[in-house]
């Protein structure tokens, strides 16, 4: 009886399912069927096993659970007949995957079938193994597959080749066994064997560099010849597609050549002729031909440069780009993105066309083109490109605006030549698509505005104008409200007029109107309302004449259901009503926001852009760049939490260096390289302690002093790192004396504690000292308890004192809350904080830690960072 033709009941089931009008009906039918199948399974019904399984596959395809049929597959596979096995293996591949335990049971049947005398059954087993085998099965059955690579029938050899791919993916160690048989597959004439053999060889090259070397030597010639024969082959009806013989084999061969030629001049040289032939002779009026050209271009781009070929490839892409067929244009954009690293100039030539593609009606093409434009932007073309993109923003689809806005903001932030241009562009984006702008973008804009003191008036007036037109754009409203609160007086009095501006007349009450509109808009969210509330408070002091009206507005929120608004309303009301005398000082203009901190945070939130550019040279936090080797530890450490400033690109990091660090890069140039083999880190970091005005001879002296001093105590110096400007100007001599003076009591105290590990001074600047005391948690040597003590040696009180620490991945850090946040001056008190560090590589690696200390002195934010690597070695 034939299991496939007797499927009337299967047909009935499918009809019944198709007849269902609703999903609920369908579920009912399926439930009934599943019940019947389960019953049949329980009765061990042989006659309908295959048909039941076929039904299960259909049910599975519809997305219903079918796990109860898995054992049936195994039974069918174990039966003797071909048709049963056929459907059993199909069920196995569809209903099971490699994660299921049941799969273990099938290994034995597979082994038997791989050795079966019927080659069709061998084929079935190979196919199943190739689709679902797990690592264990791969190990068990690899010898069988290896043998089958030399089977007499090519149809088995081709399946064995693909099966081998699965095996080496699961168990890469087995790769070497397959190298020789794979190479011999390349010499065959059967297309199926060739295409699978080429794929196997490509895969082997990926897994093992020895295999790659082997194929480069032995098979480059063969692969080139095969491709040549294929290109010049006479009409072969069985493989012909649009006049080309087997384009699929073409493509796989080109892929293989790409792997062989990549970073190998000899192999690349060898394949030049055939690539040129494919690139020039292939018909480009049919899809199959274009597919080959596309692959050929990619191969040319990846192999070693030979001038002429690259020109050919870029020309093909140019033709693709002007093609009317959207598919072709899509792949052209895709390819140009890869070509940009190889030949940026050539791609720039197509800029206008690419920009047109950003405006295409097809979302796929737009997305590709936008990404490409993003890569094309540089300092010289940022202005026209941004203008084009912003113009397009006006007419772009709603769903595309999000992507487009994000890219524009990123371009503007990265390449803006001057602040006024940055502000102008951001205002345009906010007015067009303010609802799509991410929070950090408008936060960033506010930071920039706050820092551009000569543009405050200009900005607030421009925002006022924009607000009149686009008051529905949320982030525009936020920035406007904030600026009017801060710089409202400049708006009304036209202060800081630039030549390019038209004067406008805004009364005080007009300015208050803006905040009122923002707070009363029905779709304003809490952020806008809260910001508007603060703006109103500030305006009440700036514009005494409107004070009454503002108070009235604020009072309306006394009964707000949102706690935040209610609280602000009540507090602000009392400030306006009963604290007239202190109001003006209370609502003074906000201190300039710290651009560096913000940029640093933003850099931290996009680690990808940092890590991609920090390969070549590494800049230590104090701006000294050195070659990588001795600093690997430090690098590891900082890539976890703290952005690594890199010299090879990113502007904002340069900003960070310039702004945040007083020990500027130019200083580093004047310092002689360390003379002897002392710890480079020590030298580098200690450079940061020298004041910028110092002559080059002086730091050299300090360096040599350190080299001479034998004590480990001076290691404390190595943790000295960047110092804010105010600190760096303190004389060096005093800081060293402080350090030495400060050490004595410290060592004593650790003796008193009787702890096994000596205490260390983890960090010391001219005024701040951090000491660490150690103890071990009972019973777990990996865990170290650190008792950190912070002392302030300067006469000023430090407020908002925050201590943060970061450790590399092999450590785990737990910080308890600090004992306080105010640190009295002159060493009259201390803050303590407990840290718990667990070292997962205890005994192999030593503790290292990075510190960041933030505090306020005289209303100024100070940030200090340091690296601690003088921990006792056995922690």
């Amino acid at each position, binding site marked *: 009886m034939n299991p*496939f033709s007797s499927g009337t009941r299967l047909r009935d089931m499918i009809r019944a399912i198709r007849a269902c009008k609703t999903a609920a009906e369908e579920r009912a039918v399926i439930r009934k069927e599943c019940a019947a199948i389960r019953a049949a399974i329980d009765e061990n019904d042989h006659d309908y096993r295959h048909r039941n399984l076929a039904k299960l596959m259909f049910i599975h*395809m519809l997305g219903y659970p079918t796990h109860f049929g898995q054992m049936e597959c195994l039974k069918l596979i174990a039966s003797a007949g071909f048709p049963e096995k*056929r459907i059993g293996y*199909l069920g196995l591949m569809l209903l099971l995957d490699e994660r299921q335990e049941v799969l273990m049971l099938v290994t034995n049947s597979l082994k038997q079938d791989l050795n079966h005398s019927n080659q*069709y059954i061998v084929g079935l087993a190979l196919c199943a193994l190739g689709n679902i085998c797990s690592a264990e099965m791969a190990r068990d059955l690899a010898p069988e597959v290896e043998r089958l690579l030399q089977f007499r029938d090519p149809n088995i050899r081709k399946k064995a080749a693909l099966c081998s791919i699965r095996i080496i993916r699961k168990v890469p160690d087995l790769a070497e066994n397959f190298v020789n048989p794979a190479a011999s597959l390349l010499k065959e004439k059967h297309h199926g064997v060739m295409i699978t053999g080429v794929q196997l060889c490509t895969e082997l090259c990926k897994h093992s560099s020895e295999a790659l070397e082997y194929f480069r030597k032995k098979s480059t010639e063969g692969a080139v010849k095969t491709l040549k024969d294929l290109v010049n082959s006479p009409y072969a009806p069985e493989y012909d597609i649009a006049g080309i013989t087997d384009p699929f084999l073409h493509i796989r061969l080109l892929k293989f050549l790409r792997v062989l030629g990549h970073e190998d001049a000899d192999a690349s040289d060898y394949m030049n002729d055939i690539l040129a032939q494919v690139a020039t002779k292939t018909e480009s009026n049919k899809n199959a031909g274009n597919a080959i050209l596309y692959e050929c271009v990619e191969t040319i781009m990846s192999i070693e440069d030979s001038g002429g070929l690259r020109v050919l490839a870029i020309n093909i892409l140019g033709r693709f780009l002007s093609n009317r067929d959207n598919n072709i244009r899509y792949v052209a954009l895709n390819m140009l993105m890869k070509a940009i690293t190889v030949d940026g100039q050539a791609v720039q030539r197509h800029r206008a066309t690419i920009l047109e593609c950003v405006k295409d009606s*097809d979302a796929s093409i737009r997305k590709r083109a936008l990404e490409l434009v993003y890569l094309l932007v540089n300092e010289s073309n940022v202005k026209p490109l941004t203008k084009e993109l912003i113009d397009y923003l006006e007419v772009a689809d709603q769903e595309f605006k999000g992507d487009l806005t994000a890219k524009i903001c990123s371009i503007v932030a990265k390449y803006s030549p001057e602040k006024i241009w940055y502000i102008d562009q951001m205002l345009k984006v906010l007015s067009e698509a303010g609802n799509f702008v991410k929070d950090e973008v408008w936060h960033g804009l506010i930071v920039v505005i706050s820092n551009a003191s000569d543009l405050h008036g200009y900005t607030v007036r421009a925002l006022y104008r924009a607000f009149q037109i686009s008051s529905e754009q949320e982030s525009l409203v936020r920035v406007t409200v904030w600026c009017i609160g801060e710089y409202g007086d400049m708006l009304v009095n036209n202060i800081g007029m630039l030549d390019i501006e038209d004067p406008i007349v805004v009364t005080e009450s007009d300015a208050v109107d803006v905040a009122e509109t923002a707070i009363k808009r029905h779709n304003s969210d809490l952020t806008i309302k809260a910001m508007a509330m603060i703006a109103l408070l500030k305006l009440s002091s700036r514009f005494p004449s409107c004070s009454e009206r503002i108070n009235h507005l604020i009072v309306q929120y006394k009964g707000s259901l949102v706690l935040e608004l209610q609280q602000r309303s009540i507090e602000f009301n009392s400030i306006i009503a009963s604290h007239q005398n202190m109001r003006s000082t209370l609502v003074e203009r906000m201190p300039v926001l710290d651009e560096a901190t913000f940029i640093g945070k933003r850099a931290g939130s996009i680690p990808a852009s940092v890590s991609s550019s920090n390969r070549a040279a590494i800049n230590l936090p104090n701006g000294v760049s050195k070659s990588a080797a001795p600093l690997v530890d430090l690098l590891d450490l900082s890539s976890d939490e703290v952005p690594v400033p890199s010299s090879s690109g990113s502007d904002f990091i340069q900003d960070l260096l310039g702004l945040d660090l007083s020990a500027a890069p130019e200083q580093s140039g004047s310092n002689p390289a360390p003379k002897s083999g002392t710890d480079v880190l020590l030298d580098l970091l200690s450079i940061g302690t020298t004041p910028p005005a110092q002559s080059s001879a002086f730091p050299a002296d300090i360096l040599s002093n350190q080299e001479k001093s034998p004590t480990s105590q001076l290691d404390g110096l190595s943790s000295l790192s960047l110092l804010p400007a105010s600190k760096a100007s303190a004389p060096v001599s005093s800081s060293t004396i402080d350090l030495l003076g400060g050490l004595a009591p410290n060592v004593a105290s650790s003796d008193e504690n009787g702890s096994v590990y000596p205490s260390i001074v983890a960090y010391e600047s001219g005024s701040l000292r951090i000491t660490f005391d150690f103890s071990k948690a009972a019973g777990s040597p990996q865990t170290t308890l650190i008792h950190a003590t912070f002392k302030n040696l300067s006469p000023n009180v430090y407020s908002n004192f925050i201590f943060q620490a970061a450790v590399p991945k092999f450590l785990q850090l737990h910080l308890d809350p600090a004992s306080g946040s105010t640190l009295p001056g002159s060493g009259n008190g201390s803050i303590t904080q407990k840290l718990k560090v667990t070292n997962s590589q205890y005994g192999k690696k030593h503790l290292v830690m990075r510190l960041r200390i933030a505090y306020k002195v005289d209303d100024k934010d100070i940030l200090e960072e340091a690296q601690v690597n003088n921990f006792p070695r056995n922690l």
Partner: protein
Amino acid sequence: MGIRFILMVNKQGQTRLAQYYENLTLEERRALEGEIVRKCLARNEQQCSFVEHRNYKIVYRRYASLFFLVGVDNDENELAILEFIHLLVETMDRHFGNVCELDIMFHLEKAHFMLEEMVMNGCIVETSKSNILSPIQLMEKSS
């Protein structure tokens, strides 16, 4: 890896054949199919045949009421996959004679057998129609 899944879906968005070459749970499959089908079916004839979705690239082609959707890796040759879909349709045409949605539904296992001869573990096995079909014809003859 190359091909990661092959779907055949009708105009109403009902799956008619699904073959995955990677492990996804039933729920993940349902969600993925729903998202992809919604995305692809909404596109018009003039738009290109490629859609990026999650970390897949979907290459799709419509034949009468049936959509063929192939999910591939990002570095796969999209145009070649398009050609491959056509080869699949031609192969089924040769076997069923003017293949239609119902042929695939009622002969689901045969459609799978053909696919099995053409793609294994996401790689192309065979591109000659007669080589693909010969084991299936042999099986039919013997029964």
